[in-house]
């Protein structure tokens, strides 16, 4: 890890202090109950003073056996479980699941339903990134300001979701083949209004954090990963793009109707914490662009579910690995059907799981405070890591 001092000189090794006496390294537990772990994650740091010598991450506190549960429910019944994995981007997770089932069973989706799904998922991406900005700001040391500012905007999006599907976190609104019900009448107008507010909110966060000297000092060159390292660790999403790889499943393996919109993929240069922040900030703006186009293109009337749906889903035997771009990276559902009404195997490929596995090389030989910042920049959702 490259360390940079306040003056900008680059040291390839941590500061070595000549000692006249023997010191011992200390093990310190970050988690499972610690304000910086975003849930129940535990990492045992071996610290020499303030410098981290070793880190052992422990996960699994939230393991609920979601894959096993999904195998014992029918194809539609396990949908609600997807809300509970990545609860900050529940629409995105649901979307992957219903897409997997639809592709497996060969069900066509009406165009309007596809648009509404895309709009909700992109809104959810913005919501999730707002949550990241707030939580990350708290990790870096904003005393709640970033958190409340971003939550103000997040609330607006949640209000929109509540109007659409009646819930604020566990939506359970997508269905295999379409949507549960029509969104409310003023959905498009409300969405435009929310987008206007959200754009202002993004600007606020930008002004609060991006050019703040202390923020830059804390984030630049912390936890830097090269592109090869990141790919080897299976890192995807904004973290990989911050390392300079323009890999976005919406473009590289296009699904849904993303080929109808024009937008750009933000790519970082150094792969450090600051780039991850900037990439996410720019992604929110790009999501707003996508949303504006989608709201304009969306058919105002039409069916939201296929004309005929089988009462019991019994897909032909086969398998599918459905993957989509979630706010945190590539979320995949590997689903194997054996011809019955329950999936034989459901594997959730969670992006946070693999992003988190790259934490150890990021934090070794950094300061304790940097370990917290690097952890925050991964934007983990422990429910999704542990499933």
């Amino acid at each position: 890890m490259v360390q940079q001092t306040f003056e900008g000189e680059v040291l390839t090794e941590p500061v070595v202090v000549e000692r006249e006496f023997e010191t011992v390294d200390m093990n310190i537990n970050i988690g499972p109950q610690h304000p910086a772990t975003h849930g129940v994650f535990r990492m045992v740091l071996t610290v020499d003073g303030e410098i981290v010598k070793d880190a052992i991450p422990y996960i699994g506190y939230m393991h609920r056996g979601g894959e096993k549960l999904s195998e014992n429910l029918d194809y539609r019944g396990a949908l609600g479980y997807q809300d509970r994995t990545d609860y900050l981007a529940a629409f995105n997770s649901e979307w992957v699941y219903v897409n997997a089932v639809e592709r497996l069973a060969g069900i066509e989706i009406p165009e309007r339903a596809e648009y509404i799904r895309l709009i909700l998922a992109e809104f959810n991406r913005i919501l999730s990134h707002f949550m990241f900005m707030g939580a990350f700001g708290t990790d870096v040391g904003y005393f709640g300001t970033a958190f409340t500012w971003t939550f103000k905007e997040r609330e607006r999006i949640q209000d929109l979701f509540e109007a659409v599907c009646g819930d604020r976190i566990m939506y359970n609104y997508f269905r295999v083949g379409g949507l549960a019900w029509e969104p409310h009448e003023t959905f498009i107008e409300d969405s435009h209004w929310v987008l206007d507010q959200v754009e202002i909110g993004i600007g606020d966060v930008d002004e609060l954090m991006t050019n703040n000297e202390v923020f830059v000092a804390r984030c630049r060159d912390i936890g830097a990963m090269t592109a090869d390292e990141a790919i080897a660790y299976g890192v995807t999403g904004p973290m990989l793009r911050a390392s300079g790889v323009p890999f976005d499943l919406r473009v590289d393996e296009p699904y849904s109707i993303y080929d109808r919109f024009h937008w750009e993929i933000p790519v970082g240069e150094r792969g450090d914490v600051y780039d991850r922040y900037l990439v996410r900030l720019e992604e929110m703006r790009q999501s707003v662009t996508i949303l504006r186009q989608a709201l304009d293109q969306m058919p105002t009337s039409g069916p939201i579910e296929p004309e005929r749906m089988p009462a019991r889903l019994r897909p032909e035997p086969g398998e599918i690995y459905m993957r989509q771009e979630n706010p945190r990276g590539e979320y995949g559902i590997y689903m194997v059907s054996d011809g019955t009404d329950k999936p034989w195997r459901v594997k959730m490929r969670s992006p946070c799981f693999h992003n988190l596995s790259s934490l150890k090389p990021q934090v070794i030989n950094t300061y304790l405070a940097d370990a917290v910042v690097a952890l925050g920049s991964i934007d983990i959702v422990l429910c999704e890591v542990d499933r």
Partner: protein
Amino acid sequence: MTSRRTPVAAEEPPGNEPPPGSIADTYREVMPLVSFDAAMTKGDDVALTIPLDAIHEVLERGRDDERLQMNLLRNQTAVDWEDRGLEIVYHLYSIPLRQAVTIKSWLPGEGAVVESVADLYAMADWAERECREMFGIEFIGHPDPRNLLLDEDIDIHPLRKSHPLAPIEMEQGVDVEFFTKQYPPPEPAEEEAPADTAAAAAPERKRVEDMTEEEREQRRAEQAERVARARELAAVRRAERLAGAPPAGGPRPEGAAPPPPPAAAPAAAPAAAEAAASSAPVQDDRPPAPPPPELPTIPDAEEDPEGRAAAQAERVRIGRELAAARRAQLRGD
């Protein structure tokens, strides 16, 4: 082995042959000596089934060859096909060439051993740890084969189809003593209390504010008695736990590959059961409970692996019987 349904349909590999010019042909030309069974999945991916011993080489050459450049191992998992064994699945993707492939291989259902690819893809470190604990597949050459999501000292494989959902969770070999212990019977007062008439039960539900001073006194005395009894019981259980504490599960030393199933069962379980039976104050007029069956001692893994497995199976069997009896008793028949 409770099979929920038979994977009849899975006898035939799903999908059909991919079109010519697909990535399957590239693989065949890069590695002509490996047999690739190609099929299309429902997601229009190419799935290649290869022999088990070729996994490491196929992944390594797939990563390094410039026609494939499979630099992203995006997912790794396994599927339990019961009688047909396990199927290990690698989902690979090439970011520069934008091509995806699925590599699969068949494993035997018991004692599956695969060569680890953690030296090729750092991502496989955690993925293989998860696969190992969930399916019981041993990965040779894995740098850190500990449990990841489950407890460190647990050695069950929950995603195997032989592991049904609910009941077995109680009898993981870890807590067999739960069904064998003799705890003091419930208080006679509770048994004698006339629970059928609502009027008789009404005074107990009287609000504290409405009670007379005598009733309060009585209530306090009852509570104190209950607390004392609970404390006594807790002390007994703590003593049992301390007597039968399982050995601390730590990282296994390297070099012992493939390691046997990790040690998890409490070594001093019979001693704990005896302690429980002797220290628990048994005084009741009900028919005495059947004596606890004798649990086999689990031998050390390195000395006697077969005997160990047999002992574990025996303990699980006893545990299941006791659990069934316990459930029947709880249901009241």
